[in-house]
């Protein structure tokens, strides 16, 4: 079953590579974003898709469903996700967190009525956020170029490889009945989107250029996640070994900041 997704993703990769060559000329020179022309186009596509389908559905979902039911649905997906979050914590050499994730699944699947209630959190077992992209980052893989994928949204090159693994190991991928699987996926997309509705207006108002605001936020957030909330520096561009990068984005201020933090 997974081979289909691999094929889809590799097909997309070819498209992106081709567009990257074409779009290479249309960049504003951000070293993290070498295929900015293509990325902006895909960002526009995703925004359009969101505006026309996903957001209206998520808005309706939020308006119609009583809040406890939304929470329950959100919790069920969260519980299923905890399985691979635990595996990733194990792969990252964090057995204590992995054990806690396994405990969460155990508790929530039993006394939490198959994940409907997040009893584990109220018991003090913290929810983690891990995926293969973070695991590879933890293992030292560089993040590489920023890519906006149609449907999937922003990723770095490394997180794209991570995404392939995430999709392949997603427990929901193993639902054999195609219609059921697609429905479950759709509900998950809508449920996740509904959680983000409030953030929309804020980003809209805060950003001078929404595309680069979202890009930089994504890069900062991923960096923070890889370091479990304690990134060494909090400049999204300072992680690269490339001297040009820091020069273009105000190394001076970063060092000042780092120096004053230590």
């Amino acid at each position, binding site marked *: 079953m997974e081979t289909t997704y691999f094929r889809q993703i590799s097909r997309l990769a070819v498209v992106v590579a081709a567009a990257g060559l074409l779009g290479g000329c249309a960049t504003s020179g951000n070293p993290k974003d070498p295929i900015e022309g293509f990325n902006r186009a895909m960002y526009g596509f995703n925004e359009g898709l969101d505006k026309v389908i996903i957001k209206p559905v998520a808005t309706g979902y939020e308006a119609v469903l009583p809040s406890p039911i939304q929470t329950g649905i959100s919790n069920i997906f969260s519980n299923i996700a905890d399985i691979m979050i635990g595996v990733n914590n194990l792969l990252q050499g964090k057995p204590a967190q992995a054990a806690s994730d396994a405990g969460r699944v155990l508790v929530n699947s039993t006394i939490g009525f198959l994940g409907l209630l997040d009893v584990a959190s109220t018991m003090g077992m913290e929810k983690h956020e891990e995926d293969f992209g973070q695991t590879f980052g933890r293992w030292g893989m560089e993040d590489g170029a920023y890519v906006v994928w149609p449907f999937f949204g922003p990723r770095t090159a490394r997180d794209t490889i991570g995404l392939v693994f995430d999709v392949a190991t997603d427990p929901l991928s193993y639902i054999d009945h195609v219609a059921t699987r697609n429905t479950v996926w759709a509900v998950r997309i809508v449920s996740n989107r509904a*959680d983000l509705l409030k953030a929309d207006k*804020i980003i809209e*108002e805060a950003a001078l250029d929404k595309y680069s605001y979202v890009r930089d936020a994504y890069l900062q*957030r991923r960096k923070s*996640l890889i370091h479990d909330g304690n990134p060494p520096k*909090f400049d999204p561009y300072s992680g690269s070994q490339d001297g040009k990068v820091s020069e273009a*984005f105000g190394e001076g*201020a970063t060092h000042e900041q780092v120096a004053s933090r230590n």
Partner: protein
Amino acid sequence: MKLFAFLLASAASLFLPLGVHAQETAPDVLVKTVTNEVLDIIRKDKDIKAGSTKRAIELVEQKVLPHFNFSRMTALAVGKDWRQADTAQQKALTEAFKELLVRTYSNALIAYKNETVDYKPFKMQPGETDVIVRTQIHQPGAKQPITLDYSLEKNAQGWKVYDVVIAGVSLVTNYRSSFATEVRNGGIDGLIKTLQAKNKTLEASAK
């Protein structure tokens, strides 16, 4: 004589701690006090409940602004181009960026007013002048709390916030690349103009 000394000592012991306190509220206490106070008002205020951005901005300006160091924030957001700006430009940049951040922050407060805030344990070495106060926002229904961290630095006026980091994303440095692009295209003045225009648009559409 003894009595006099005693009185003096008690007077000193009475007033000294007060004086020190007023000047040096610990950073975590400061964040907690201001957050609670502001949330309290926001949850009660009729206009804000009705979604009035203007009222929320007034509140933020009054209660939150005094604890922020906006010139430091602006310098961090602008990055190395900050040094090529003259004093007047730096002032104009700071004013415009302040207005944008205040509006963003006010809207975030309105949107998330019903969420609860948790304060993570805070430890500070004596003599430290740069700290992070970590908090967590718990949303009803959502699966994961959002982290909200404040970076504070101590100056002559006490502890001042110079960065706000939401879910690992710094509200300040997140502007760096778009600011750099603006400066590259239109110089410092170009960036000032863009920020001012953005503020005007937002003000016009605000309730």
